[in-house]
């Protein structure tokens, strides 16, 4: 192999690795998106803002000297509670109003959190404290940091946990029943309001983890950081098949890798266009997503 080919392969491996790291973050947010959509068919635009909130709770906890093993659960709890309160106050009264009013409300909540965040926390980006010293492992020309490994590991563990929760426990059975048919689930004695609240809590908590991990990875956070990753996580959820848990992770990884390959090998200014192009292509050619099976609308 000539030297330039070797270098190219190392470059490619670097892009793939960065893509998988970024994709894991998308996947963590997408898991919450896909659960919420699966259970009440709501595109929760404000989901990206739970991720932002998780990052800020983590930031304030770490700055005031709380150790990381306490800050991580704190940001999960905070983001999860915020999601639950939002559901209780705003989405629940609209649950039977149809999909479009719910979508508009979610959009309004997303803008509200962004600008309220800017008013309360200041619009300038803040640098995230370095709590875990970065270690770099080298393998040839390929560099891997311990934070990248941590992000990938966390995503994998949380995905397995969620899969176990939904498929193997009583609560999971109740969730599946609620998403399958709301009214019949209620007749069977399931407290659907509680189950939907819990779904929002788990989704918000996952977004909170993603927020704190991204803070450690990129070292900078700001109140509008949730908008674009939120939309991209939705794209990831649609890409994998909305409502399907492994699909969200697969979609996130595919999206992250695709973005980094385009940025690395072609032009960086089109980074944000990739996600939308993928979304449109998947909606046109395989609307049920990579892992979904198509459904016909019936009267």
């Amino acid at each position: 192999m000539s030297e330039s080919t070797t270098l190219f392969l190392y470059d490619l491996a670097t892009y793939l690795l960065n893509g998988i790291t970024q994709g894991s973050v998308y996947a963590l947010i997408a898991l919450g998106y896909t659960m919420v959509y699966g259970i009440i068919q709501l595109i929760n635009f404000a989901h990206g803002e739970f991720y932002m909130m998780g990052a800020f709770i983590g930031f304030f906890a770490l700055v005031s000297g709380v150790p990381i093993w306490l800050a991580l659960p704190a940001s999960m709890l905070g983001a999860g509670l915020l999601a639950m309160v939002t559901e209780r106050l705003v989405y629940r009264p609209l649950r039977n109003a149809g999909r479009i009013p719910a979508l508009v409300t979610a959009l309004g909540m997303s803008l509200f959190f962004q600008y309220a965040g800017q008013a309360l926390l200041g619009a300038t980006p803040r640098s995230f404290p370095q709590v875990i010293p970065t270690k770099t492992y080298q393998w040839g020309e390929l560099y891997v940091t311990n934070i990248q490994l941590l992000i990938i590991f966390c995503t994998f563990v949380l995905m397995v946990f969620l899969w176990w929760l939904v498929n193997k426990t009583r609560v999971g059975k109740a969730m599946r029943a609620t998403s399958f048919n709301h009214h019949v689930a209620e007749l069977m004695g399931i407290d659907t309001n509680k189950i939907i609240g819990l779904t929002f809590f788990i989704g918000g908590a996952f977004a909170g983890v993603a927020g704190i991990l991204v803070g450690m990875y990129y070292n900078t956070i700001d109140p509008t950081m949730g908008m674009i990753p939120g939309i991209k996580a939705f794209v990831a959820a649609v890409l994998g098949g909305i409502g399907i848990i492994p699909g969200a992770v697969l979609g996130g990884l595919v999206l992250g890798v695709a973005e980094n390959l385009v940025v690395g090998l072609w032009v960086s200014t089109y980074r944000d266009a990739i996600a939308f192009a993928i979304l449109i292509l998947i909606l046109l050619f395989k609307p049920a997503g990579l892992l979904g099976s198509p459904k016909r609308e019936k009267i």
Partner: protein
Amino acid sequence: MDYILHLILLCGIYMILAMSLNLINGKCGQFSLGHAGFWAVGAYTGASFTVFTGWPLPGFLMLFLSCIVSFLCAALAGVLIGVPCLRLRGDYLAIATLGFGEIIRIIIINMDVVGGPRGFTDIPKLSNLFWTYFWVGITILTFRNLMHGTHGRAIISIREDEIAAESMGIATFKYKTLAFVIGAGFAGIAGTLFAHAQQFISPQNFIFMWSAYILLMIILGGLGSFTGSIIGATLFLLLGEALRFFGETVAEYRMIIYALLLVLLMLLRPQGLFGKGELKFFWKGSKT
């Protein structure tokens, strides 16, 4: 005084934007979140037309021609985006149009001819009150006549029930595209008027938030009511200006108030001010 005149002019532009989005969202029921994209297409093509051709024509004629050009270009963009997207329904359509709106903006950022991220400067000031409200009048007339005819009935039937409309023999895809393309075209006209009023446009003017603002205007007035859109656009502008009187800090909270207004409207009065009805003296003999 100049400032107030400028606001009245902007108000006219918002009216055209709101009515054109209402044709798509309110009358046809196809939920689009990418209206700022068509606005941007219109603004950039209209401004390019006047700046790059540089024909020695009187100002009003130049503005008229560039309105026509921007209508055609934005309508073309509407065809290109509408034909693939309108196969989708409901919330998927909303996200896909949002995506296209952002793609349009990213493409403009990457076009160096029109200034890229720096913005398009030195656009002649051709828009004035008369010509802006002339186009507002054209928009009202066009939409009014459209809604009175067969096409308008077909468009409304799609909103009411798409499957039933299709089974009654209405070519739903054709009429959805028609509404989408006409709406996009008029947003283009609003773009040209905006470019020639501000004399400077940049991709920052057409971010996704503006699609949300136009949506707020039509929801405020009532989805499906053109007179409601006119009132909604006016109220939106007045609200923004009224907040300035309370000092700088309140003006910074403007966005929070708009967002809250959107949520509260949905929770408390989802039909807006007028619902689907029109003001009678203004919109004679219209029932839907």
